[in-house]
């Protein structure tokens, strides 16, 4: 007896303590960026979420719901309340209000920064619960530990990465846990809870579509396997009806569950379940075999009728076909051809194998082992795990970003595999030589008996299993696996520390002597904008920086990361890709007063605008095919160059001019572009409609002011030519004077 508790309570206490420690580790390993830099919101999208949360906290929920943001997408504006998944903001606002009610005056920024790590602890706990349903609680603990530190999930949930995915993975796991629980027990209560958390998920992330397709798929496969049961009927019906009704309360989702193809599978399965339930009911009152055949054909018939009705309704336009984003998951060439804006995002690229290994290390080959073990048992919940594993691995292969949905199931299955292995090789009872020692300890015996019973329940071919019979083999396997697990922890820590903890608005590099060198150009530029420009001035930049400008500089932007209006983005792309005259007209029409470009040439920062320029051109060409042509930016040999051989179109584009303006002077002759490894042409770049307003310390952000119309009604080019001409004359006069003096 330890602490006066019996074995069961000891186990429970241990589990709680272990889960607590896992949660602590999960949170702690996500804090690298805070320790290294500061408590700051990362990247792009989080800045919008942060801005929206601040708005929500400073006003009321209803005002947030009706928020029309006139400071983005100028001059269109954006209806934020209706186009946002509010779950994240509402969650942090709720935490904020609770803490303030308890007199903890916490800044909303810190809540936002730490929200994702906190939810990762919850994710670990829900992974424990889910795995405990699939195997047992020891596998659950392993799964919790895996997901706590797996880089695939950390990538989206480090402190400061204030994004929907941060809470969505917890919701995903917990919804699945509740679904499994509801299905196992045939409980409407758990079905309703599933629906509730599904609702939360719908409110939080667009990835809810994965749930609303995976659960019906699970139900459908169970039906095909002849495993229809009243449990399935109760769990699914309660989940579907409540979940759909609740999800329609989110304005962004609205009537989609009844009108789009993504949601039709769930509806169809709901219908089939009703029919089958009805047939089962009638069958229980009828004995005749003919009737059964009749009913079977009735089911098949109604299935096909529904399917064709769906096809007809889609063709008739009553049901929207798959949206481009989802369709591009199936037809992988689709996005590149028709929606370049989706293809341009780096996280929408397919996944090469190193990414899998990088994000999951040894879990990646334990994942199929777990799937195999699930096949051996194949209860209803194992079918779910298998389906989840197959679909998620496909999606992760198509898009790097969806690695996030694969990671939880990999952790669960890998935990199942490792736990099977440990069960087998740690089970001391099978070891004949040590049995005598065991017998003397009565306490341990009871525990081992329990373990053994647990083992016998899960293994099928109990009669043939002899266990592992010698000590040395056990020791070898255990030592190696212990070692593997340690390497896994090192790997995860290394990856988190090196790859996933950079805020991307503050860059770090090291001096030759090893000391850290912080590059804070982005914030420098945004604060300059905030302090030195008029509150109502409009800033044009490529859409990547829209949210940051709105969040940090608090200035109106033309386009931002929401990317809802392709034409508007293409217009900005066209402006960037055009010559000064054309661009000036576009900028005047959009009231642009400042243009912001990112230039990495001095520092070798490769994510700059010249490297993104091709996408701007492509997107612009999609809308203005006559005015912007991608081919004109390539040399006759098909190269994309910025040096002497750059094409005239390239050199005349304002993007090129703004990036390299005055750059040669920095080098006193020919500028050296360190990203593209090119020597620039020594020709001086002249700007007549734009003037340099600010360039940051390392030249990463360059801000240009759009000149006002000329006072004398000349075109700006004429004015600039005149001015420069005057200057030249003056200098001539000077030089002549000098010569006279000399």
């Amino acid at each position, binding site marked *: 007896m330890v602490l006066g508790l019996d074995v069961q309570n000891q186990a429970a206490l241990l589990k709680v303590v272990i889960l607590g420690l896992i949660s602590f580790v999960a949170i702690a390993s996500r804090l690298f960026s805070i320790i290294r830099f500061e408590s700051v919101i990362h990247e792009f999208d989080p800045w919008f979420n942060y801005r929206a949360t601040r708005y929500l906290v400073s006003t009321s929920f209803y005002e947030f719901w009706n928020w029309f943001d006139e400071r983005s997408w100028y001059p269109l504006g954006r209806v934020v309340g209706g186009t946002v998944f509010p779950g994240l903001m509402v969650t942090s606002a709720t935490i904020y209000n609770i803490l303030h009610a308890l007199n903890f005056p916490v800044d909303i920024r810190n809540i936002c920064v730490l929200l994702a790590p906190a939810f990762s602890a919850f994710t670990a706990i829900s992974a424990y619960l889910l795995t405990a349903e699939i195997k047992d609680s020891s596998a659950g603990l392993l799964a919790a530990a895996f997901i706590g530190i797996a880089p695939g999930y950390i990538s989206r949930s480090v402190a400061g990465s204030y994004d929907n995915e941060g809470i969505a993975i917890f919701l995903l796991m917990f919804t699945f846990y509740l679904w499994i629980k509801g299905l196992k027990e045939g409980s409407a209560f758990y079905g309703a809870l599933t629906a509730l958390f599904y609702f939360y998920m719908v409110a939080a992330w667009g990835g809810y579509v994965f749930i609303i397709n995976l659960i019906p798929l699970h139900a459908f496969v169970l039906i095909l396997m002849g495993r229809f049961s009243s449990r399935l009927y109760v769990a699914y019906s309660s989940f579907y009806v409540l979940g759909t009704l609740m999800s329609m309360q989110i304005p962004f989702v609205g009537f989609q569950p009844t009108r789009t193809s993504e949601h039709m599978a769930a509806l169809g399965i709901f219908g089939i379940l009703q029919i089958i339930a009805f047939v089962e009911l009638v069958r229980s009152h009828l004995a005749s075999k003919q009737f059964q055949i009749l009913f079977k054909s009735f089911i098949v018939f109604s299935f096909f009728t529904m399917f064709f009705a769906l096809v007809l309704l889609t063709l008739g336009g009553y049901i929207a076909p798959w949206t481009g984003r989802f369709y591009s998951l199936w037809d*992988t*060439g689709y996005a590149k051809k028709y929606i370049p804006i989706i293809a341009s995002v780096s996280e929408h*690229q*397919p*996944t*090469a*194998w*190193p*990414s*899998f*290994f*990088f994000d999951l290390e*040894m879990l*990646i*080959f*334990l*994942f*199929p*082992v777990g*799937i*195999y*073990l699930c*096949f*051996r048992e*194949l209860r209803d919940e194992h079918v779910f795990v*298998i389906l989840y*594993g*197959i679909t998620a*691995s*496909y999606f*992760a*292969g*198509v898009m790097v970003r969806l690695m996030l949905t694969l990671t939880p199931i990999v952790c669960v299955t890998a935990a199942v*595999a490792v736990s*099977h*292995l440990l069960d*087998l090789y740690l089970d001391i009872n099978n070891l004949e030589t040590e049995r005598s020692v065991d017998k003397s300890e009565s306490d341990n015996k009871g525990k081992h008996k329990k373990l053994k019973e647990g083992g016998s329940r899960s293994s099928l*071919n109990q009669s*043939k*299993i*002899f*266990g*592992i*019979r*010698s000590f*040395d*083999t056990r020791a*070898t*396997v255990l030592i*190696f696996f212990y070692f*593997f697990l340690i*390497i896994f922890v*090192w*790997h995860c820590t*290394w990856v988190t520390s*090196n790859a996933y903890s950079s805020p991307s608005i503050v860059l770090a590099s090291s001096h030759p002597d090893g000391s850290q060198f912080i590059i804070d150009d982005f914030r420098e530029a945004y604060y300059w904008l905030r302090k030195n420009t008029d509150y109502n001035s409009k800033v044009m930049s490529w859409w990547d920086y829209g949210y940051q400008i709105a969040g940090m500089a608090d200035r109106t932007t033309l386009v931002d990361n929401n990317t809802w209006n392709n034409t508007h983005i293409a217009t900005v792309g066209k402006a960037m890709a055009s010559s000064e005259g054309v661009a000036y007209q576009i900028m005047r029409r959009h009231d642009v007063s400042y243009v912001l470009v990112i230039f990495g040439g001095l520092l070798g920062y490769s994510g700059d605008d010249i490297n993104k320029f091709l996408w701007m051109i492509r997107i612009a060409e999609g809308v203005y*095919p006559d005015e912007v042509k*991608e*081919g004109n930016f390539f040399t*006759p040999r098909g190269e994309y160059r910025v040096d002497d051989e750059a094409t005239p179109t390239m050199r005349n584009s304002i993007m090129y001019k703004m990036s390299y303006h005055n750059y040669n002077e920095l080098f006193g002759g020919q500028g050296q572009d360190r990203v593209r490894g090119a020597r620039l042409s020594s020709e001086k770049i002249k700007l007549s409609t734009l003037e340099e307003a600010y360039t940051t310390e390392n030249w990463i952000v360059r801000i240009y002011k759009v000149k006002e119309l000329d006072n004398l009604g000349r075109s700006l080019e004429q004015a600039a030519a005149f001015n420069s001409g005057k200057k030249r004359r003056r200098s001539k006069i000077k030089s002549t004077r000098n010569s006279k003096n000399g």
Partner: protein
Amino acid sequence: MEKFFRAFLFVLIFSLLTSHASAAKPSLETKLHKLNEATRKNQGVIELDSSLYDEVTSKPRNYSIVILLTALDPQINCVPCKDFDPEFRLVAKSWLGSGNILSRIYFGVLDFKNGREIYAKLNLNNAPTLFYFPPTTGQYAKEVSEPDRYDFNRRGFSADSFASFLSHHLGTQVPVNRPLNYFAIFITIFFILAGLAMLKLMFSIIQNLIQNKSIWTAFSLITIFIMISGHMWNHIRSPPYIIPQNGKISYITPGFSSQLGIESQIVAVLYCICSFSVVTLIISIPKIEDKTKQRFGVYIWMGVLVATFSLLFALFRQKNPGYPFRLFI
């Protein structure tokens, strides 16, 4: 001779000066006539040579012409040329049969063996290349008279995208009428019927197959192995399978976010071996009754696992040189 030539020049200049239109017209008309003849004769496609190329592309044009510079010579072995050729001819033939005015657009083909001079003049070193020459006079004349180059990389090699490129330039729909392949239809019907018959005859076997757990297990695991080893990346990006490099063949390309075709297969096999050894350790080993055999089995499979895993680490270090961990190798 020289005199004659001078006189000719004089007449030419004179006529140009006096009435621009009347001078251009006859030559245009003969050109059109020639083009029409050639088009009708050869199912919508005009086979060009260097001189003819210069002639048909010279200004003024009151017609559009699209010219495919290709190299079908088997010695050159230009695969995209061979792929695109039937598509090009299909669009040309469809245009011929579409009932549109023939002279709106002509389709010309210049093979490398007939037009080395043109290739040299245009400084072209890759085929196929496709130019669209807009009309310079007449009712359809455009402001731009420079030819537009068809971007194969972006638009692809299909007749449909080529036709949409033309439609965009002409402002009318350019049709693509693929001839019905009766043979293919017949074959498909035959196979469907045969398949149905097989289904009927072998229903019980198929039913067994469908209900067989091992088959589903194998299917699922293979799918997963294919997906986690980056096959979708290969499918979307279509990288080279291997790169032969001065005598040596490189199987691994450096770079974290790229891979060769064979690389993902190597990795899939390594994953497979790792997974299989773990499964053996869990499932098969405890079923061995004999102690020595069991010990032997454990050491072998543990050895395989450790070796393969080390190899995986080594492979990964090649892709990501900064990676600090290693396992024995």
